[in-house]
């Protein structure tokens, strides 16, 4: 049986399938802004520390500050997950699993390759790879169920 296709008043745009829906959008927006704000703050603190703009012991305070400010995006993400519906939660959980698995595999492979003679890689690489995978998996999940 062929069913009539009933169009939405607002056609599905790139934005409409990438975001979690009208009800969850404010929480998603809050998370995105808080993570961007944190990234900016982290970059600022890193600049201060790398250029020795503060002396000991204040450099330790500058090093600790991004960790404390980091509570804001974590909390925003938790609230977003609590408010999201079951499909959005499924997409997020699948993305987190993919990110963790890729990060773990990369970490293990890196250790083995370094033992085999590969030049040592930066420890920060694992974090970057995990975050990149998380973003990609979220994008893929939103596309899959669009």
């Amino acid at each position, binding site marked *: *049986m062929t*069913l*009539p296709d*009933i*169009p*939405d*008043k*607002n056609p*599905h745009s790139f934005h*409409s*399938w990438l975001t*979690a*829906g*009208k*009800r*969850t959008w404010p929480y998603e927006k809050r998370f995105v802004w808080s993570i961007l704000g944190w990234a900016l703050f982290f970059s600022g603190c890193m600049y201060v520390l790398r250029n020795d703009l503060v002396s000991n012991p204040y450099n330790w305070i500058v090093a600790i500050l991004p960790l404390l400010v980091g509570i804001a995006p974590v909390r925003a993400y938790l609230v977003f997950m609590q408010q*999201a*519906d*079951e*499909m*959005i939660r*499924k*997409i997020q959980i699948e993305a987190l699993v993919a990110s963790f698995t890729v990060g773990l595999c990369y970490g293990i492979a890196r250790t083995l390759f370094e033992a085999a003679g590969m030049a040592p890689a930066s420890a920060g690489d694992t974090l970057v790879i995990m975050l990149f995978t998380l973003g990609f998996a979220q994008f893929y999940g*939103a596309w*899959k*169920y*669009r």
Partner: protein
Amino acid sequence: MKNRLKVLRAEHEMSQAALADKLEVSRQTVNAIETEKYDPSLPLAFRIARLFNQPIEAIFVDVDS
């Protein structure tokens, strides 16, 4: 699990977004259930049944049974 959600939605002339609004879920959820990529939770299945005023088993059919 097979379901008649798309048929019911078409009978009620509702868009996916309108149905999602009524069920308080995202449009992706409605689409994923209709395309049978995802089986809804029991509370959501009850909400769908209440909305269309039909028993759950008239909307969702377990193909294994």
